[in-house]
Structure formats: C-alpha cells, structure tokens
C-alpha cells in the first residue's frame, strides 16, 4: 500500500472515528427527544436551540465530576474496565463499508477502514471482547450489585452471541465470503439479503438488542433490582465511557445490520443511476463519486433508521425477566437459527440443483 | 499483491519457530512455577497456542491444509479442556475456597 493511500485511509479512519463519536453523542440527545416524543412531552430544550447543545453539556458535566475510585476496589482494573469497553466499541466499526469506491486524484479509496477478508469474524471477535469491559469493571468495583450486574451482562452477552453467530452462518452460506465489503457488493441494487433471510434478520436483530444491553434486554442495569448494574460504583468520565460505549455499540450494530441485511450503501436503481450519470456528465469518475456519495448517505440513512428503531423499542417494550431472557436466547433463538441454517442450505441446494 | 500464505512466508520460518518456542517455554515455566490453578491452566493454554502459531506458519510454508485442520482440532479440544478444567477448578474452589494448588495436599504429590 502506498503512503498516499495510507494517508487517505488515515484521514478516512479519523473521519469515521469522529462521526462515530458524534453520532454516539447525539444519540443521547435523540434518545431523550424520541422518548419525549413518544411520551408526549418536550424533552431537552434549554441548552442551545432545541436543546442541541445538551450532549455537550452532559459531556462537560461528566468531565468535571470527581474521578472517584471506591476504596475496596481493584484500582487498576477499575480504570481498565471502562477503557476496554470504549476501546472495543470504537474498534468494531473498522470493517464496516460505509460506501463504495471514491476516486480522488486517481487514487481509488475504499470507504472502509480495513478491507480484510475476515470482516465478519473481526466484528464478532471485537464485539465479544466487550464483555471484558463489563466483567472487569463489575468485578473491580467490589460491590455485590456491580458484580451481579456484570455477570448478568456477561452471561446474557455470551448467550446471545451463540444465536447471533448461528444466524450469521446462513448469510455466509448465501454469500460465500467473510468479507463485509464483498457481502455489501453482492447486494447490488435492490438485491438485499433481507429478502432471503427474514428469519435470520429477526434473530440477528434480537441478538443485537441483547448484545448492546438495550431494552428489553437491559437486565444488567435494571435499576429496580441492581441499581446501576455493573457501573453502580462508577462516576465521572468512566461512567461516561460505559454509556458512550453503549451508544457506539448501537451505532455499530445498526451499521452491521444494514450491511448484512439491507444492502449497505446499495440502493435501488443504483447501476441505472450511475449509467445515466456517466451519460449525463461524460465523466466516469465523477459519476462514480456521486453515486458513492449517495450510497454513503443511504447507508447512514439506514443506520439512523435502525438507531431510531432501537430507541423506539426502548420506550415501547417492557423489560424481560431474566429467566425469560435466557429461555429466549437458548431455547428459542438457537434452535430457530439452526432451523434457519437448514432451510437456507436446503434452499440453496434446491436452487442449484433445479435451476 | 499476493496471497496470505505468501505473506506469511515473507517472514523466515525460523522466526515463527523461535517465537512459538518462546511462547511454549513461557507456558512451561509458568506451569512449573505458578501456584494458582487458573494461572497454571492459562499457561497450558499458552502452550497450546504456541503450537497453533507454529502449525499455522508451517501450514503456510508447506501449503498444506492438514496443519490448518490440526489447528482447528486443537482449538476444539482446548475448548473442551477449558470447560472441564474450569469446572474442576470451580468445584475445588467451592470446597477449599482457594485455587492455590499447594493447599491441595491431602494426597502426597
């Protein structure tokens, strides 16, 4: 890879990183706004126009709070916990393709941070590291509620990871590759995976909710039972990081879902549009860049939709009971996912043999 | 641009060998010197992973899929070992409230 390419890549990565943080920050704002909307109230409206500066105010508050460490806790681990959570959350967006190729000055830039052929595994691997953040934090606090919350979180995460992994297999069987970019490319136009994998998507969606500890799966931090869950003892920016990580995770989960099932940056009549643009502008590069940018926009639109969906659900559904949660994960989703694999496999084979 | 096996081959085989041998020896030393059952166990896992590293390197150098398959099996077996091993450690922990192997001297070593 040439150094120029690398430079572009670095710029792109920083950009995505910034966008990620921005979206995460503003998710908190939207969350409250949407909650307000659903509950028919106003929501934040003091800081700045429409309360738009509210997230900054929140962040500032967190920064200026006391950086407090409980006396009986394990100091190093106590700091490490939120660090890991944040680190992992920000790392996982690296393999998501936010757009197609952008051609600048003759250099072709893939709008994907790291284009590796094991993208799916990468996401999987990095996301499952997130459990450490919770576990380490909860354990380090040396507080029974924290510990219980952390363990709940951990066992919930790993339980749903199984079903998630199984539901992904069906996608892989369809696409035959582990690279997220290739998966995205295969969904050219309107040929989205959701049409072939409705069941798989459903399973994945449920798992994504569980993985991000969102309602209705937010048992680790269910206030009524466990106070703050694993972050009971946390304050200042360390607490902020846990909260932040959660929103980043929502963002990444949405991005992954969009990529896997909803065609990523692809939108209907994309090729036709590009062909028409080439005709109209008589410049293939420009046409390509325009389409790519539209694709990026489409991608973010999809992501926002999912984020909205996440919030919508939060303010709509009640929380599961723990036994229901585990039962759903193990006894319903896993068999369903396996069924899905069998159906997919059978379908593919049937198609290959018959046609 | 070239494929992964070739990429791996850009580093001399000896380096992989030394690296995995070093990992392995660290594991062995850990097993022999540590007293905490869990750490001993982690050292054992380190040994297994040293093996995996070497196998992968060799597989690329030889273009032989057998070694890669072997890695898979080692991983699967290691997982099974983890399950059984942790279960045993937890069982012991519940009885003696410690994972220090030196405390277990009901039987002569």
């Amino acid at each position: 890879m040439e150094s120029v390419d690398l430079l572009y890549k670095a710029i792109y990565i920083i950009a995505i990183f910034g966008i990620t943080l921005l979206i995460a920050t503003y998710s908190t704002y939207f969350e409250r706004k949407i909650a307000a909307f659903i509950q028919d109230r106003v929501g934040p409206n003091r800081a700045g126009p429409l309360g738009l500066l509210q997230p900054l105010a929140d962040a500032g508050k967190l920064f200026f709070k006391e950086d407090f460490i409980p006396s009986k806790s394990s100091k190093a681990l106590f700091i490490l916990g939120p660090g890991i959570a944040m680190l992992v959350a920000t790392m996982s967006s690296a393999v998501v393709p936010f757009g197609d190729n952008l051609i600048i000055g003759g250099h072709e830039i893939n709008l994907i941070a790291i284009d590796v052929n094991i993208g799916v595994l990468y996401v999987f691997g990095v996301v499952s590291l997130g459990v450490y953040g919770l576990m380490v934090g909860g354990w380090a606090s040396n507080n029974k509620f924290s510990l219980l919350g952390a363990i709940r979180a951990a066992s919930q995460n790993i339980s749903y990871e199984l079903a998630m992994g199984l539901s992904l297999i069906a996608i892989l069987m369809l696409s035959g590759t582990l690279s997220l970019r290739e998966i995205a490319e295969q969904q050219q136009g309107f040929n989205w995976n959701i049409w072939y994998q409705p069941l798989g998507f459903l399973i994945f969606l449920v798992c994504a909710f569980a993985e991000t500890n969102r309602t209705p799966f937010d048992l680790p931090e269910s206030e009524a039972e466990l106070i703050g869950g694993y972050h009971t003892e946390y304050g200042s920016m360390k607490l902020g990081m846990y909260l932040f990580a959660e929103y980043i995770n929502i963002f990444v989960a949405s991005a992954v879902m969009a990529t896997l099932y909803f065609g990523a940056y692809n939108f209907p009549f994309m090729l036709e549009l590009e062909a028409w643009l080439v005709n109209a502008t008589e410049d293939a590069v420009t046409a390509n860049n325009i389409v790519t940018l539209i694709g990026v926009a489409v991608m973010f639109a999809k992501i926002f939709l999912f984020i909205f969906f996440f919030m919508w659900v939060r303010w709509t559904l009640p929380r599961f009971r723990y036994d229901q949660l585990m039962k759903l994960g193990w006894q319903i989703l896993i068999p369903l996912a396996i069924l899905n694999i069998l159906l997919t496999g059978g379908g593919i084979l049937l198609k290959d043999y018959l046609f | 641009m070239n494929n992964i096996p070739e990429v791996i081959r850009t580093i001399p085989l000896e380096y992989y060998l030394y690296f995995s041998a070093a990992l392995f020896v660290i594991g062995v030393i850990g097993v022999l010197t540590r007293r905490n059952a869990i750490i001993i166990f982690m050292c054992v896992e380190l040994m297994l992973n040293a093996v995996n590293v070497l196998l992968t390197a060799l597989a690329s150098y030889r273009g032989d899929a057998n070694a890669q398959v072997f890695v898979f099996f080692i991983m699967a077996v290691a997982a099974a070992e983890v399950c059984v091993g942790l279960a045993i450690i937890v069982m012991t922990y519940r009885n003696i409230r410690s994972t220090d192997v030196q405390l277990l001297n009901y039987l002569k070593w």
Partner: protein
Amino acid sequence: MEPTVNQYVPSDYLPIIIQFAAALGFVIFALVMTHLLGPKRKSEVKGAAWESGIESVGDARTPISYKYFMTAILFVLFDVEIIFMYPWAVNFREFGLDGFLQMVVFMGMLLAGFFYVIKKGILKWE
C-alpha cells in the same frame, strides 16, 4: 484455506493500528482529562461499596449461582462448534449436498448435546 480473489498484504492491516491508536488515544485522553479536571475529596463512607444505602457487609467476591458459570461453559463449547461451521458456510456451495449432509450430522450431534443440556435443567432459571 483457499486463496481468495482479493489478495492481501500485511500492510492491509495497518489501518487497524491507526484505528486502534485513535481509539486508545481518545480513551486515555478522556480518562486523564477527567482525572485532572474533577475535584478530589475522599472519605471513608464514600469509599465504601454502595449497597442501597445499607452498610456493606463482607466482601463482594463470593461465589455466586453456578448457573452463570454453566452458561459460560456451555458458551465456550457451543461457540467453538459454531466457529467450526464458518469455513463450511463460506464454502457451502463447493461442498454441495455431501457437505450439507455431513453438517446435518454434525448439527445433529450438536443438537443432541443441546437437548441434553436442556433436559438436564441447566438452562432452567429459577
């Protein structure tokens, strides 16, 4: 493994380092900043673990329900089995019907274990 159409060199993974550096930088920056900015006032009561306002009793590091532990162990097992399916899934079309049937046998075993676990009541909470 089959060499894929797209080919990769080690430097393809360089961006990971960039991303990691960025993430790490942010984390360290945030933690240091909050440490510097915030006030520092310590007291014994404040330092104690918070247990709904009641004085905390004993150490938190007590063994908890073995159910969680069982879940973890089962996860390790099943996760590895699932990982086994990934290469198969990627090359599914190549293996064709034979591969499919073999995987059905594999999944049969997996399911047998799964149902055993369920029947054994390990996943029963409460």
